[in-house]
């Protein structure tokens, strides 16, 4: 049956590979944080242990080890101990088994550092902000950047001479530095845009105009900090690709044949777009990880900070939850683009038919 549906065959093969990648990534996500020398209980004890003496601190620590499932228990629920009286730690493979079993039931566990908050709860609260900022910004930046780049390549002249150096400059600025410049100039010096936060401090998120207005107003600087840099970078890439395509034989031939100019442009645009699509997949995949810097510069709500504190505090369940999300988003973005390329790129299409 698959023979008769080369597209379906292509998609299923890709999906199979992505699933395999997913499994490997999940395993690495589990073991990597546990390989470091520091552990979450020590960090928690630093928080709660001040003022306790050695004996009380030890009792508290063991209560946490038990609560988080990091020590072996006997049948009565008491902590198993070795000869010297220290608790027996649960081996990594056992923790991994528990993690897989729980994840399959949709339970990402309880965060250590935000105890007793569930990992899913933390992610659910933060992800809408990250998506709402990153997704439209990346999509718009990509679309507008590409259109402008193609235009610059095609029109040349004054437009290109003004546009190209500007885009080059923007694409060369690290986006965090640009974000800080924006905050300094517009948020602190001129005070025309808010310097901090995702909405005004005197509001709470609710569906009314004052909140939506405030959220949009606070959106502008973080949006610009990502959008301009991304659009600039995309435009540079697109412009070069288009200039290259303009010089190719097929364009010359099509022009010579007298084919409608818009049609030639369409062919050209379609071919020049292919590498850009891969770039889009990378940007979308890096969405959640990349949000951190923006969040720190603007104190913007989102998942990035949760990821950072989780990693700093070795909050295993939260790290696993966040890296799972990042893994899924990177793979999903790549998968989508893989499929899209399958449709756009005649060579890939031909390859499928040939099978």
């Amino acid at each position, binding site marked *: 049956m698959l023979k008769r549906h080369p*597209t379906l065959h292509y998609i299923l093969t890709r999906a199979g590979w992505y699933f395999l990648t997913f499994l490997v990534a999940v395993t690495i996500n589990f073991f990597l944080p546990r390989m470091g020398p*520091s552990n979450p209980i*020590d*960090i*928690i*004890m*630093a*928080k*709660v242990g*001040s*003022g*306790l*003496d*050695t*004996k*009380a*601190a*030890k*009792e*508290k*620590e063991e209560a946490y080890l038990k*609560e988080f499932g990091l020590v072996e228990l006997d049948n009565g629920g008491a902590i198993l101990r070795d000869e010297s009286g220290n608790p027996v730690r649960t081996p990594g493979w056992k923790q991994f088994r528990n993690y897989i079993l729980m994840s399959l039931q949709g339970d990402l566990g*309880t965060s250590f*550092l*935000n*105890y*007793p*908050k569930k990992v899913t709860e*933390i992610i*659910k*609260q*933060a*992800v*809408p902000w990250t*998506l709402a900022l990153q997704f439209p910004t990346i999509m718009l930046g990509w679309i507008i950047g590409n259109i402008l780049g193609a235009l610059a390549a095609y029109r040349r002249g004054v437009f290109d001479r003004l546009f190209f150096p500007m885009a080059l400059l923007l694409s060369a600025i690290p986006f965090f530095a640009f974000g800080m410049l924006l905050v300094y100039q517009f948020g*602190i010096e001129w*005070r025309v845009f808010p310097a*901090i*936060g*995702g909405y005004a*401090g*005197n*509001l*709470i*998120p*609710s*569906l*009314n105009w004052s*909140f939506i207005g405030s959220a949009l107003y606070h959106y502008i600087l973080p949006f610009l900090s990502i959008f301009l840099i991304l659009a600039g970078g995309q435009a540079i890439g697109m412009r070069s690709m288009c200039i290259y395509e303009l010089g190719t034989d097929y364009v010359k031939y099509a022009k010579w044949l007298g084919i409608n100019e818009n049609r030639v442009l369409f062919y050209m645009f379609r071919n020049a777009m292919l590498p850009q699509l891969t770039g889009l997949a990378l940007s979308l995949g890096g969405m959640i990880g990349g949000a951190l810097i923006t969040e720190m510069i603007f*104190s*913007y*709500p989102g998942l990035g900070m*949760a990821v950072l*504190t989780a990693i*700093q*505090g070795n909050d295993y369940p939260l790290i696993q939850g966040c890296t799972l999300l990042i893994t899924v988003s990177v793979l999903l973005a790549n998968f*989508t683009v893989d*499929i*899209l390329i399958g*449709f756009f790129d005649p060579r890939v299409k031909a390859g499928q038919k040939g099978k």
Partner: protein
Amino acid sequence: MDTLRFLKRFLAGLACILLVGCGKGSKETSKPAAGGDTEFPRALTLYLAGFQWGEPNTFNPLSDWPAFPVGGNFNLMYEPLMAFNTLTGDMEPLLARSFDKTSEYVSVTMDPRATWSDGQKVTASDVRFTYEIGQLFKNAPTAFVWDYISKITVDTITDSTANSLVEKITFLINKDRNNPLVVMDFLQNVRIVPRHYLEPMLEAQGGDLSALQKLKIDQNPVVSGPYNLLRYSGEKIVLKRRDDYWGNAALRGNRLPKPQYIIHPIYKSNDHFSIALQQGNLDVSSTFIPRIWMKAKDGVRTWYSKEPFFVPAAMTMFMINVTHYPLSDKNFRRAMAAAINYTDVRELAFSLYSPGLKPGLILPFGMEERYFSAEDAQKYGVSYDPELAKKILSDAGYTSEWDESGALKGMKNAKGEQVPTVFIKSPAGWTDWEAIVKIAVKSMRAAGIDVREGFVDAGIYWQSMPSGDFDLLLHAPNPSVTPSQPWSRLEAVMSSRNWKPQGEKMNENQGRYNNPKSKEYNPAVDKLLKQIPATADETQKKELYRALNAIFMQDQPTLPLVYRPEQFYEFSVANWKNFPSEENPYAPPQSPCFGAGTKALWEIESTNK
């Protein structure tokens, strides 16, 4: 053609997933606020920050680290028996109106007017529940108090002034520790919780405290304090004034606290505290902001309007692992103490927020001044003196080796062996601490001591501290100002009651000073540490403190570097005025939510009309 159709469907499906995902999430964050408050007028809202970092986890008063203002020393929702005024040293009435202290017990008289937010009275039964839950459960926050108290008794006595019956609670001192000082600490830092509200909850969980600790108790909790939780998110915690708070009539002359709302925004970067203060979006902060005097033009103020700006109350120091060679040599430690340029630390790393350092572990000002002896400091202590450092080293047989360019190569001891380089462990990225370490390294190397920076990930830093896995480690032991200071600082630095070798964990004296099993063990240290809290006579107490501080200065088990405030109390006068300050010291230098500082909420005035 089928491919195009597929593409369309695929994209439609993707859009659906995204929309549903977003929709779900935003529903979660936009729960309708209790009471319908969604906007907070500036004139009625006090913004304070610096106590909650990251996502609020829980508001359960029986959990270990609940979010602001349930954890910590905040008197907004749950209240302790008394409030400790860190400026005057007085215990101010709160749920209890007075206290009595002897060597056998600490007792308090409850204020019969105190009520919970559901109208029930706050009684001795609530106090017993709060403490005794620690006797039943090892994982309760009050578990450790039973090392210090042996029994709680309640008597009903006739109150002479009001001629009414009041409850008197007596905490009998546990004679093992024999430490009434720490019991005094409990009066002001153990927050009383409502028994009639929490006990049924505990029963509903089958008597399992760790199951109860998983509940967030964030929906209209029963509290006794002047504010209650309105709502919270990852961006802020909003508290609303309780106009029926019992203390308004009983303690504050029938007045309401001025702010109707208190909002604690949660910022993600240190700079945002200073930006928000300068822009008037934040009224009180408690974070380290360098060169605060530059912000005065924007209305940002501190307790003192000039140096040292903050009220010093604690010490930042290098803990020394005295089991590591050459740090095991007292002379080496004293040479280090003489080699560090404390003036540079204070001026360059600490933004002048400290008076000049005096030797010893007792502060030469404030409440501790009465135990400080300038004469002893002169006699036993060492101050910055690079020549003295070099002399101590050469007298002890150490020679420093320099290369042609004058840089220190290393050190040899009297036997001609290479002395290992000493590393200072400190968290990477804590910029003010990094500066302290760099200055200390520079000045010690200049005096010929082979010391290097060792910046590590904060997680490793926290782990190294109790296990003793360090040479030197930057730390501020016991920075809170409580009735038990300066004893608790001395205990945290010098006690070998729980001495354990490196690798096993110690929660005090992490430098492993005064090993009881070693030949050099000085039993006087532990004896003095045990005697001081049980001594009532002030003259005798001063003698004991002097003796202990003299041992500290001679043995130099840690290297105090600079004084620091309990909290960096900063405020903006753009929207509220009449905050407590040096000129107007009606409350201690604390954020108006913290300890006895809370009473400032009744005195501040909005400048917005």
